[in-house]
């Protein structure tokens, strides 16, 4: 292990709070001086350049999927993020059918458009809204909630769950002795998990005897021998993965797209005028403020060296995709949102065997959501009296997004 005393002071002194407020300056220096670095405040390494993230994320001969300790504490085992080999194949095989692009195309318009319309109608005559709380998050959770079979769970409850799970998942800080810096930080996630089980257990009981077309019902039954279902304990950790990341991130992505476009009013207007450009606007936003900024990790099966840093077998390396997507080697002025930049592929959906299974679904949810918003409120404007604060190191997006328009 890299000893703490070898660590330069600027790395040794970084805190969770600073990372969550704005990780970019620190990571910019890491990319330049130490692309794979041990961060004492986290207790593990972070990969920060595109090249390092591609190597660690994409090379499954050496690297296995692994969840950070705080993530593991939040989700439990086995979840799709830290399962490997046949166990991972089994979980991917379970979640993938409803997320394949061809399958998504079959249902996504009918699923998402009415939801997006409903949430636009709820705000359009008010003349103002916090788009994060009143549009992006509700459209995101309702779309996935209905796909999973959680129609009976309100959107506000689904939002509350992902917020609570998120607090625990990113409660990564450790003390020098390896103990949690903030053990209380896991309490919201523990509460959410208990509540989720109380709500889902009866639904699972029903799906066992009455399968339907919901994703969770398929997770129980697909590929199982006649008369058998998957053990719910095998499902829950991955259900928690979905109820956090998959619920939260399309909302982050939609909100960041709007916030990014607001930094370039001419580009904002162009996208509102020509909905066909919404896809590209979303792609650039994922690069600009990657929703899963630094939340997934890998561990090496053998000793290896990446970007000059020796990593003994069993190291934990966090993939900071949000930093890789600002890599100066690939992007000029990376901290600027720019719809017109050459679309060099980004890493916002990760790499290798553990790359996001829901990337197409997520992008379609964002596209349809923004299409409906801009169609119904083409005179949407940023409320200049309110700051736009981005927050988060594990997951990142605008905290609030205040807009107003003439009614």
């Amino acid at each position, binding site marked *: 292990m890299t000893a703490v005393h070898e660590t330069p002071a600027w790395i040794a002194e970084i805190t969770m709070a600073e990372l969550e407020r704005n990780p970019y300056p620190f990571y910019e220096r890491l990319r330049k001086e130490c692309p794979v670095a041990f961060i004492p405040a986290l207790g593990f390494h972070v990969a920060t350049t595109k090249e390092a993230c591609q190597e660690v994320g994409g090379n499954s001969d050496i690297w296995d999927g692994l969840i950070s300790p705080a993530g593991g504490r939040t989700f439990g085992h086995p979840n799709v993020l830290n399962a490997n080999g046949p166990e991972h194949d089994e979980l991917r095989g379970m979640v993938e059918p409803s997320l394949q692009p061809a399958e998504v195309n079959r249902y996504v318009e009918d699923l998402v458009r009415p939801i997006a319309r409903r949430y636009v109608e709820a705000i359009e005559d008010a003349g103002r809204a916090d788009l994060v709380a009143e549009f992006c998050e509700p459209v995101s959770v309702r779309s996935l909630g209905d796909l999973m079979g959680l129609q009976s769970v309100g959107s506000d409850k689904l939002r509350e769950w992902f917020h609570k799970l998120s607090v625990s998942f990113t409660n990564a800080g450790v003390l020098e002795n390896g103990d949690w810096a903030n053990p209380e930080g896991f309490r919201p996630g523990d509460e959410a998990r208990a509540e989720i089980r109380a709500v889902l257990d009866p639904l699972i009981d029903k799906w066992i005897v009455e399968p339907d077309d919901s994703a969770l019902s398929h997770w129980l039954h697909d590929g199982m021998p006649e008369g058998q279902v998957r053990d719910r304990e095998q499902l829950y950790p991955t259900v928690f993965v979905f109820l956090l990341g998959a619920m939260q991130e399309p909302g982050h992505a939609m909100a960041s797209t709007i916030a990014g476009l607001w930094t370039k009013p001419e580009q904002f207007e162009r996208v509102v005028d020509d*909905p*066909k450009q919404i896809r590209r606007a979303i792609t650039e936003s994922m690069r600009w403020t990657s929703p899963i900024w630094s939340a997934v990790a890998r561990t090496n099966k053998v000793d290896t060296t990446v970007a000059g840093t020796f990593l003994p077998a069993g190291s934990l390396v966090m993939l900071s995709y949000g930093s890789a997507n600002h890599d100066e080697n690939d992007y000029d002025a990376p901290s600027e949102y720019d719809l*017109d*930049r050459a679309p060099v592929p980004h890493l916002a959906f990760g790499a290798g065997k553990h790359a996001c299974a829901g990337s197409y679904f997520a992008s379609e949810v964002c596209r349809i959501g923004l299409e409906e918003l801009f*169609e*119904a409120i*083409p*005179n949407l404007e940023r409320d200049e009296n309110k700051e736009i604060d981005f927050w988060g190191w594990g997951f990142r997006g605008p905290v609030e997004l205040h807009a107003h328009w*003439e009614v």
Partner: protein
Amino acid sequence: MAAHSVRLKTLGAETLCGADQPVLDAFLRENVWLPHGCAQGTCGSCKLRVIEGEVDHGAAPEFTLTTDERAEGLALACQARPRSDLLVEPLADIADDGVVRHPLRDVVGTVAELTDIARGTRRLVIDLDEPIPFTAGQYVELTVPGTELRRQYSMANPPSETSRLELHVRHTPGGAATDGWIFAGMAVGDRVDVRGPLGVFGVGRPQDEPAILIAGGTGLAPMKSIVLAALAEGLVPEIWLYHGGRTEADLYDGDVFRELEGRHPDFHYRPCLSEQEWDGASGLVTDVVLADFTSCKGMSAYLCGPPAMVEAGAKVLKRRRMAPRLIFKEEFTDTSDLLSPSTAEEERT
């Protein structure tokens, strides 16, 4: 002249394109419709991806096709000439939208009428040797005699008349086609080279949404064609036509529209003057529209005229919550826009 084969990836259509012929031109002549707008490199709506082969970008300006885009393999169909066989794919949707398209053709015509109808504005009627079928809202290009210069003018006649074109031309001081020809030596009986139809602006099929038409100056030309076609064929449930000018001297064809208004309860004509008090609407045409409608939800609009007016009109309609995909624009850009869009913009405003 050497020709190359050009193929569209998704549609599979293939055409032969001369080494000095724009790809757009080659396809339109075969009646294979490709998305486009201005045919002069200013609007960017004809962008396509060159998947295989090489093109000469011709006169494509940097502001419409950036260096990055060229490096990515994009080209403007209206400017790009093939240097080899090509496989291409337009960026815009080429799905069938139910609009009947007509092949591009070159026809010679004779000037049948040339009249002053408003301040600095002439009606130019051309009898064609052969018909040019078109859709209401489209335009033709006239070649300035003795030059290679082509200028765009929108048809004002309804598409039911294909052998006689009515054009409205506004005088541009120092302009090659207007100052140097149409307002100078042109006379009845002159022969004129005409190429068309071009453009995607207009009403090509029945629509459910009522429409607001906003015209500045000779932007009225395509609107006249649209109104005549829409009323004759019942294409649009209700139409409001706004025509903006500075003073009464800028307005024309008011009697035509007032007569139509008398016969069609679903058609409304609203001329607006920005620099003259009168018994009609006063103010910028866009401000008049803003005052007339409290909400434009569920409506569509067609805007045509100087680029600054078209942009202002679109803003106003969005303020009134019209869906941007239902706002259709035709900007009368000219050589000065091509040279330097930003300075031209400043001069106009």
